[in-house]
C-alpha cells in the first residue's frame, strides 16, 4: 500500500522564522511529488517535483526531492502570518495501464504568530 508521511503534524513559529516541512513516501512506480497549500478553502498547487536534487523556488518558498532517500522538504523563509495554512504533500504513482494514483499525506498545520 502506498504511504505518504508528513512531519511535523503541526508547527507554531513567529514571523520571520524559517521553517522546514518534511514529506517521506513509500510508493511503487513513483512519478512525481506535489505540494499544496490549504488555507480555509481549496488546496492550491505550489510545486511539482519529478527529479532528484533540483530545487523548485517561488518567492520565499522552495522545495527539493530526494528520490534515493524517498523524501521531500518544503522550506519557507522569513515566514509571514499569511503563510499560516495546512501544507499537503501528495505522491503520484502509476497504478496500471496509463492510469495513475495520487496519495496524500495528512498535512502539516503551520501557524505563524505575529
Amino acid at each position, binding site marked *: 500500500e502506498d504511504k505518504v508521511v508528513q512531519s511535523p503534524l503541526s508547527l507554531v513559529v513567529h514571523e520571520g522564522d524559517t521553517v522546514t516541512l518534511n514529506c517521506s513516501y513509500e510508493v511503487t512506480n513513483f512519478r*512525481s511529488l*506535489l505540494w499544496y497549500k490549504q488555507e480555509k478553502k*481549496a488546496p492550491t498547487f505550489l510545486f511539482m517535483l519529478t527529479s532528484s536534487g533540483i530545487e523548485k523556488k517561488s518567492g520565499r518558498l522552495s522545495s527539493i526531492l530526494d528520490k534515493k532517500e524517498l523524501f521531500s522538504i518544503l522550506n519557507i523563509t522569513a515566514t509571514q502570518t499569511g503563510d499560516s495554512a495546512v501544507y499537503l504533500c501528495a505522491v503520484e504513482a502509476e497504478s496500471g495501464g496509463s492510469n*495513475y494514483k495520487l496519495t496524500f499525506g*495528512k498535512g502539516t498545520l503551520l501557524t505563524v504568530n505575529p
Partner: protein
Amino acid sequence: DVKVTQSSRYLVKRTGEKVFLECVQDMDHENMFWYRQDPGLGLRLIYFSYDVKMKEKGDIPEGYSVSREKKERFSLILESASTNQTSMYLCASSLGQGYRSPLHFGNGTRLTVT
C-alpha cells in the same frame, strides 16, 4: 485560470436522505475527482473519472456513487446519508493524465448529516 465550482459551501441533511453534491469545471479537463477530508485522516479519494460516463472507485467508495454525464460536471451521490458521512467534500479536476497535471480543487462542501 481554472475554476472548479462546487454548488454548495455548507449543507445540512438528515440521516437517510439522498444527497447530491455537484461539481463543475470550466477548463475542459478530462479528469475529475471527489475526495473527503477529515481531521487526522487527510484527503481520501472516493471516486474519480477519466472521461464522460466513465467512473472508477477510489479508496473509500462505500456508501457513495457518482455520475458524469457531461465532461464539465461530476456529481457525488450519497444514496442514504449517514452520520459518518459528515465531512468536508472536495472536488478536483486535472488536464490529461500523468505527472504534468496537478489537481485544481473546488472550495469544498462541508456536509453535516444529523
